């Protein structure tokens, strides 16, 4: 893979580091699919403008880390760093949902059979014309 360290990419890094005040790692363990909801707290003073944008988006609708990054047009890592600040300030919270995993303690586990059946039923209700091709075996 050849280096793509061109000027455009360099300036993206500069913008990102400015945004996160030089930090390169989020304080909280956040997945690409971690969902965030607005919380009761207020962000501390001197936060990046993007923090207000994140809060406004999450007040409208719960949003995943990926969705926030996509809407802000910022790299995921930078958004995770800002989201960590907002979690610390209680301005964002991670809503508890029914665990999708077969075992609630194992984050790597796959969704339970019950969840898969619910997903199937939900998709069929939404798209009655959709056909599943079932494989023998």
């Amino acid at each position, binding site marked *: *893979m050849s*280096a793509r360290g061109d000027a455009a990419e360099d300036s*993206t*890094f500069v913008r990102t580091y400015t945004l996160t005040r030089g930090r390169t*790692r*989020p*304080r*909280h*363990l*956040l997945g*690409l*699919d971690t969902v965030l*909801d607005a*919380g009761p707290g207020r962000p501390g003073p001197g936060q990046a403008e993007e923090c207000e944008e994140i809060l406004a988006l999450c007040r409208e609708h719960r949003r*995943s880390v*990926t*969705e926030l*990054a*996509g809407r802000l047009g*910022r790299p*995921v*890592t930078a958004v*995770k760093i800002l989201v960590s600040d907002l979690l610390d300030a209680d301005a964002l*919270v*991670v*809503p*508890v*949902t029914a*665990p*999708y*995993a077969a075992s609630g303690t*194992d*984050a*790597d*586990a*796959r*969704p339970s*059979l*019950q*969840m*898969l*059946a*619910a*997903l*199937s*039923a*939900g*998709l*069929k*209700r*939404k*798209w009655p*014309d*959709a*056909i*599943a*091709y*079932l*494989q023998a*075996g």
Partner: protein
Amino acid sequence: MPSPTSRPDDPAAALRTPSRPHSDAPTVLKIVIAGGFGAGKTTAVGAVSEITPLSTEEYLTEASTGVDSLEGVEAKQTTTVAFDFGRLSLPDAPVPLELFLFGTPGQDRFVDLWYDLSRGAVGAVVLIDTRRLETSFTPVSFFEDIGLPFVVAVNHFDGAHRYQPEQVRAALELPACVPVVTCDARNPSDVAGVLLTLVGHAENAPATPVHPAPNATLQDA
């Protein structure tokens, strides 16, 4: 193949983020849609998503090839990769559900990202443009190696030679249990049918967790 390098976790991030009860929050499930350049990933995500697919960027760090290790520290290079995000809610499901769709390109350098996306996922759809079948080998062997249930969806482009699913199965050396279906990525019912096929396949697959393949590491685990 550039081997992804490990990204040490920030020790300060050792504790899981505290979360708040939120009784009516739907359960989130996710599906990965992988495929080669121009295979129709964004189209497929957009066909069923309630939001216009978002293009999201992430940094990936990879080892620079051909550079000698210096004091055991490999020279690393950071590149930006983009992937698609879409979502749909299924309020009429027996339990309220929200489905996240992640569309990701099929090159080796996305492997770190695929790990992140695969953890806890329902499974993956590998979208195939039969004019460029070879671009599907990497995602197919990745999902096979980590044990994530996947289906192969052959996207029928106008003017493309129409391969039969069984020809695609043979070319990709897919086991008999992996469903191979055809679809038009522009058609929501078709894409929903592919997702249903995947869910049915995942229900039959043994419930093993996703295993890291050799020579690969998790990032920001």
